[in-house]
Each structure stands twice: as C-alpha cells, then as structure tokens.
C-alpha cells in the first residue's frame, strides 16, 4: 500500500511489519515521532508487543538486551546524545550477540548544542561492534527496518544492527512510500529463533566475563561474523526482492561509476543531490559518478577498492569530522579500504552538513570541480575541505 509518510513514520511501519515482541525506548529529537508512532500502534492493537517506557537510553538498550536474552525480538531507537548515553551498552549488546535492531536518527553532537542532522553520532561509534547501515530515503528506511532483522538474526551473523536515518532530512520529511503487505513481510521475516537465550531445562550463563586466555577468541569471531554479514546482506536483499518486490544493491550503491573519472563517495540522504550533479556533469561531458556507502560496518572494502581503482580522483563527502584526525571517519575508511587492496588514488575529503547545514547543489559542484582540478594535477591530494568555510582556501592539509 502506498502512503505519504515521514521517515520516522515509514520506519515505524517497517518495525510494525517486523513484529518485535519488546520495544524499549526513550524520547529524543528527532527520533521521537518513531516511538510515538509505535506507541500508537501498540495502543490501537495493530502491534502486539511489550512496550517499556524506560527512563533513559542506557536503560532502553539494557532492557532490549534483557529481552533479547529471553529469545524475544526487540527494537529500540535513539539519536545523538542518546546514542552516546547508551554507548556503554552498545558493546554489551554486540558482544552478547543480541540481534537488536535500533533506529538512530542521525543528529549533531553537543557542544554547541544542536538538534539537527549530521552523522557524527553514529560515525563516532563505528567500533562498538554493531552493523551500521545508512538509509538514503524513507522507502529504504522502511525496508531496512525489516531487512535489518533478517540480517541481525541470521545465525551466521547474530549481531545488532543500527539503521541510520538522517535527522530531519529524512525523519521529518514526507515522501511517498510503498508499505509491504503484512503477509509478504511475514513470508520474508520468520519469527526469531536462537540458542542465545535462557533455557529453563538447561540453564545458561549469558554475558559472563572472559579473561586473557579466551577473550581474543570472542573478538575474533565477532569480527569474522561481522564480515560474514556481507554475504547475508546480499542473500537477504535477494529474498526481500522476491517477497516484497524492491531490489537493493548490497553494501554500496554505485551510480555511473563504471567508467567514471571522478567519483564522489557519500552516505545517507546527501546521495540524491550528488547524483543530480553527477548527471549534470555527465551531460557536460565529465565522467562523474557517485558511490553511496550503505553499510559502513561491515566495511565494503572490496567494493570500494574495485569501484575506485580506475578513477582519476575520488572525493568523500560526509557530515562528520574526526577532530585532529585524517578528515572524517568515512574518508579514513575509504582510504584504508583502498590502500589495503593496493589501490591508491588521489583523494579529497569534503566536510559538510554539520549541525544540520544544507549540502547544496553548489557545494557538490565545488566538490566535483575540486576533484577535476586534482585529476588534472592541480592542487594537493589528501586535503580536508570544510565546505563553505575553507573551500576557497583549498582546505586543510
């Protein structure tokens, strides 16, 4: 059924279709409307689940873990400072291999205090052991709510998934969205079954400590199973296409990259405008492409290296900065993924959209123009450019 929904409303529709048995959530802008929508669904009886009104984000995720340990499918949602407040629990949830799905409404971090969208919240937590995926639009957000459970609960993976939805740009923006039929969703997503749960016949210990002798094995398998998620994502997307009709392209979404000289890598809702500008450049004779990263954990290393191996210059446009580091987290990820696979292309990092600032068409044009100069041998590779702030000076070296 086609509906006109905000990103949060769309996501809530996806969660309803996934039939979580326990929801625990604490409100924070701009996540609030998703938990409000879910509360209404529970109240009207269209979603049968236990809804825990917890007193903090820390408790939200902690309760989700407790519920998951009983074998229940669980959902929570947060944003920004809330995500950081529950950060301690992120490693518990992933190390405990609880396949919790969490929506994170991407929002700036304090200080200065700011409620608008950027991606510093989730990107600062890439190493907390969660699968991280970024939606580009409301349809993808809804579909990811369903697909995230299928990936998380696959026994080859058994890891929590954080579905990132750009604050306001998506969460509060209305789009026409196709909501799958419940029957199709049920066919796609069977009930959760796991051995990672309490057992009253043969009791278990869950979430114990493991000292130096054993600890490394847990981290090894956590890493290994996260890498295995790549295959599972592809299988899940194929099944989703078969049951719900929409096809998704795996860990990355490459647009006109095959023969591209200039590729702009980005993630989330900024990809749309980047593709528009690429089309514009193509029309003018410049071979431009856009590589949208969907999953940042696991890192789409092979896809990045393959897509970027033949380009003249690559740019990474992100709503993040790693203070004192090598640009933003996405830039570092792209460079390392390429270097590890023997690919070294001239690259620039474009920082934009911080604290909810628009990433404008003109800014994206600036990015491509900068890449074009770099490809022509002008300017230094590796620069970190704050769009609209130091782009005229050429950025930081």
């Amino acid at each position: 059924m086609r509906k006109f929904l905000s990103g949060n409303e769309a996501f809530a529709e996806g969660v309803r279709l996934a039939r979580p048995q326990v929801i625990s959530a604490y409100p924070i802008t701009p996540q609030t409307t998703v938990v409000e929508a879910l509360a209404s669904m529970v109240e009207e009886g269209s979603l049968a689940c236990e809804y825990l009104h917890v007193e903090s984000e820390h408790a939200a995720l902690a309760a989700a873990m407790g519920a998951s340990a009983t074998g229940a499918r669980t959902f929570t949602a947060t944003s920004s400072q809330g995500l950081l407040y529950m950060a301690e629990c992120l490693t518990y949830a992933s190390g405990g291999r609880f396949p919790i799905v969490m929506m994170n409404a991407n929002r700036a971090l304090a200080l200065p205090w700011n409620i608008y969208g950027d991606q510093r919240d989730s990107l600062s937590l890439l190493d907390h052991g969660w699968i991280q995926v970024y939606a580009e639009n409301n349809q993808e957000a809804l579909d990811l709510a369903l697909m995230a459970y299928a990936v998380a609960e696959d026994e080859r993976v058994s890891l929590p998934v954080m579905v990132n939805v750009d604050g306001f740009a998506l969460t509060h923006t209305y789009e026409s969205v196709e909501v799958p039929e419940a029957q199709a969703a049920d066919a796609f997503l069977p009930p959760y079954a796991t051995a990672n749960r309490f057992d009253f016949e043969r009791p278990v210990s869950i979430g114990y400590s493991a000292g130096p002798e054993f600890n490394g094995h847990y981290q090894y398998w956590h890493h290994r199973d996260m890498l295995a998620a790549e295959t599972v994502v592809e299988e899940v997307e194929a099944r989703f296409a078969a049951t719900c009709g929409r096809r998704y392209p795996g860990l990355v979404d490459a647009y006109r990259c095959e023969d591209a000289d200039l590729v702009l890598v980005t993630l989330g809702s900024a990809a749309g405008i980047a593709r528009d500008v690429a089309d514009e450049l193509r029309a003018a004779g410049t071979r431009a492409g856009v590589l949208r990263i969907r999953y940042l954990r696991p890192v789409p290393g092979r896809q990045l290296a393959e897509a970027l191996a033949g380009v003249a210059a690559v740019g990474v446009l992100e709503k993040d900065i790693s203070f004192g580091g090598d640009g933003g987290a996405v830039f570092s990820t792209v460079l390392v993924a390429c270097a590890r696979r023997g690919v070294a292309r001239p690259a620039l990092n474009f920082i934009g959209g911080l604290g909810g600032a628009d990433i404008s068409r003109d800014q994206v044009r600036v990015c491509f123009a900068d890449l074009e100069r770099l490809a022509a041998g002008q300017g230094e590779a590796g620069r970190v450019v704050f769009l609209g702030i130091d782009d005229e000076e050429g950025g930081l070296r």
Partner: protein
Amino acid sequence: MTVNARNITDEEFFYGHKACPGCGGALVVRQVLKVLGPHAVSALPAGCMSAVGFNFPQLAFGNNAMITPFAATAAVLSGIRAGLAAQGTAPDDCTVVGFAGDGGTADIGLQALSGAIDRNDDVLYICYDNEAYMNTGIQKSGLTPFGASTTTTPAGAREHGCLTQKKSLFDIVAAHGIPYAATASVGYLSDFLKKVERARDVRGCRFIHVMAPCPVGWGFPSEDMVDVAKEVVDTGLWYLAEYEGPALSGVPGGAFRLNRNPKAFKPIEPYLRRQGRFRADDEADLAAIEAARDERWAYMRERWA
C-alpha cells in the same frame, strides 16, 4: 510453606564461585536462589558477585543468569520480564531477580531502579550492601557509613574516614509506593529468607536491601561475618523493616513496619572496634555515629512503629 533449614532445597545455584572466604554477598545470592528455585532468572551488574560468579569457563550459577552493565541492573530485569511476558513461555515459578551491590544500587544504578519501580515491573531487586565498592578495592559508595575508612576516604590525621551518612535507600525506594520492600541482614537469616519468600510471592516490583558484611573491606576475620551481620542490627546501626505499598497494605501511601524494635541497643563501640575500617575513629566520631543512629531510630519509631 515457610522455607527453613530443614525443607530448603538441597540444590545449590551459586556454587564454586570465587568470592572471598566469608563473603556476606555470596551468602545472600546463595540463599536467595535457594528460596527462588531453579527457574529464577538472575541479572547481576559488574560487581563482586558477577566477577566471582561467572568468569568463563568457571560459571557458578546453576540457574539462568546474565551480566548487566553496571548502571543497568533494573533495566535488564525489566527487559527480561518483558521478553518472558511477550512469549508466555516461562514457568510459573520463574522469578526475575537482580543482585546488585550498594554502589550498583544506591549510586550508579539508582536511576534504573527508580524506573523499574515506576513501571512496577514484575521483578525482585536485591541490594547486597557491603558498604563500599569492594570489587574495585574498597572505595566509598553512597552507602558507606560515616567514619568508615575506605581507599577513597582514607583515615588520616585530618579526617578519620567517610564523612557522609548512608543514604536512606529503603526510604527512597518506599517513596515510590513500591508494592513490597524490606531491609534485612544475613546475620538474621531466617528473617531475611522470610522476606525473600514474601517478595517472591508479591507481584510487581519488589526490593530487599540486605546487609552483607565484607571481611576484607571491613577488616575483620572471615569467620566473624555472621556475627558482625548480627551485631550491626543489635547495635541499631542497621534495622530490619518492611514496607508494603498501598495495594498490599490497604493503607494510603503504604505501611512501614519495624521487625525489630529493641528497648536498648548493644553498645556500638565493640562493633566498631572489631573492624579495621573504624580504627581511626575517636570518641567524637563514635558520638556522632551514635547520635545519627538515635536520630534515625527516633524518625523510624515515630513513623513506623
């Protein structure tokens, strides 16, 4: 049927753990689990009992048990109960029970505890109080008593130990209108077990604050643990009480009861002097401890007796 030494199960559900010899907290966990039986599901935050209870592959819990983030005991309990409720598959005698220390309850875990009581989730929360952060090496918590030397309130020439009184955790919990709350001491074991049974059979949120002496942190020989746990009650420095919420008691605001209200207390000095942590306290400190005790008892007797 009231649980006693003769009819209590032969099963041990907390066994082979690495708690220090004479650990009061270990006795709490052991006995509570024996009362609750094999279908209890336990949650324990980072702290003594989780550190000694499950260090893979030495897993000392015979029932289902789970570790929680330090601040999240009550939240994990709520999640467990919600998960079981959503699936409807747990045995009828399944008690969801948390064991957290004084710091894990009265300090870092207080917010989560308050939330669980507010929601009236059907869980039992046991705070085993050894009066400091013992697992990390005897640092002051919100339940460390005045005058006790800890590694972060070291006794010296200037100060003789902790400068603050114990938080009134029981009152804080009761102020929520919780269905059932109690205080206890492992020194009065049958009283404690009776309260555990009572709590087990009440629905909604329940809380027991039980004094659990720590030989290492308090500085007394391990064999004296039960003695000390008795004496802290006999001196009036701890009290045995119950609170029943409005629904259970039928009294608006709920009803308190003092289970022991002696005419005279044992002198505090022998109790304090037998413990290393009070060694530096002088006459004035002892007088302050006694005065605080008397004030507390005046308060309780006026309202609860």
